[in-house]
């Protein structure tokens, strides 16, 4: 379905990929991952119980910066970046903040909403 999606998207909309550079803050020593991590901790009031935990979270944060950049190129009409979840791995994020029972389907006996007129 992913391939189907991208094919559909490509057929219906000519994609123009932005190629201008200069937005890569991670290569700037003044605005590198450490700097972003400090800002992140201050903004969201994060603290870690040990240096090991801190180092681990910094590693995860760096991976999430790269992930945000990937999301930005896959989803250019939105803005992706640092959020309150930037020190969580995708698995931790899913486990802690998502809670829809994924194996469930809608029951076959569920009431179906009547079809509404949409032309007037």
């Amino acid at each position, binding site marked *: 379905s992913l391939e189907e999606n991208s094919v559909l998207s490509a057929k219906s909309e000519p994609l123009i990929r932005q190629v201008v550079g200069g937005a890569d803050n991670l290569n700037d020593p003044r605005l590198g991952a450490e700097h972003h991590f400090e800002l992140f901790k201050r903004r969201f009031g994060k603290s870690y119980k040990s240096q090991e935990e801190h180092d681990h979270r910094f590693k995860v944060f760096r991976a999430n910066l790269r992930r945000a950049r990937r999301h930005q190129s896959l989803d250019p009409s939105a803005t992706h970046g640092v959020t309150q979840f930037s020190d969580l791995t995708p698995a931790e994020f899913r486990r802690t903040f998502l809670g829809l029972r994924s194996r469930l389907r809608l029951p076959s006996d569920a009431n*179906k909403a009547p079809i509404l007129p949409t032309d007037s």
Partner: protein
Amino acid sequence: LPTDFDWRDRGAVAAVKNQGACGSCWSFSTTGALEGANFLATGKLVSLSEQQLVDCDHECDPEEPGSCDSGCNGGLMNSAFEYTLKAGGLMREEDYPYTGTDRGTCKFDKSKIVASVANFSVVSLDEEQIAANVVKNGPLAVAINAVFMQTYVGGVSCPYICSKRLDHGVLLVGYGSAGYAPIRMKEKSYWIIKNSWGENWGENGYYKICRGRNICGVDSMVSTVAAVQTTSQ
């Protein structure tokens, strides 16, 4: 159908809430839909209790043994509507406040019900029907794949590829027609989604996702609910 529609402008949407570190999104989606339906039925916006659902709703899916609403471990909006129908309704947020844990016991007090479900149903996988239902019946409980939401900051999310595996419960409160997508050089229409991760996430707690091709599965599991008027305080 109007080209733009937003229940926030019409007073049917309570303030953005925060589920904390607990997989209870399904309960926020459920209360959001019933808050809107109750507003349509009574003219009053009352914030409803998610904690009642977290503590007391263990409704199971008859078709999937062992699959039951389970506090911070997850649940499903339709099962929660079923519970609410059977229990008689939901209490006010202030009367049964959210704690962000599921370790407490059920403290449901039937005499304090302020909103009840008259009926609920699923909406077909058709964007025009989803739009018509949100306009006619109020905010809709929807499921979505949240992979892009972990890094979302703002704008209209319209990923080229996104899984349709549903893992998050949210509330569809309206739609817009003109979110400009520079890369596509055209205006994109979008759904307005209320999330439950606090006001500091996304656009003041809200997410915009583009319409048109069931992006991230947002059209796949849509439920509408109708409320009955209650007389108890």
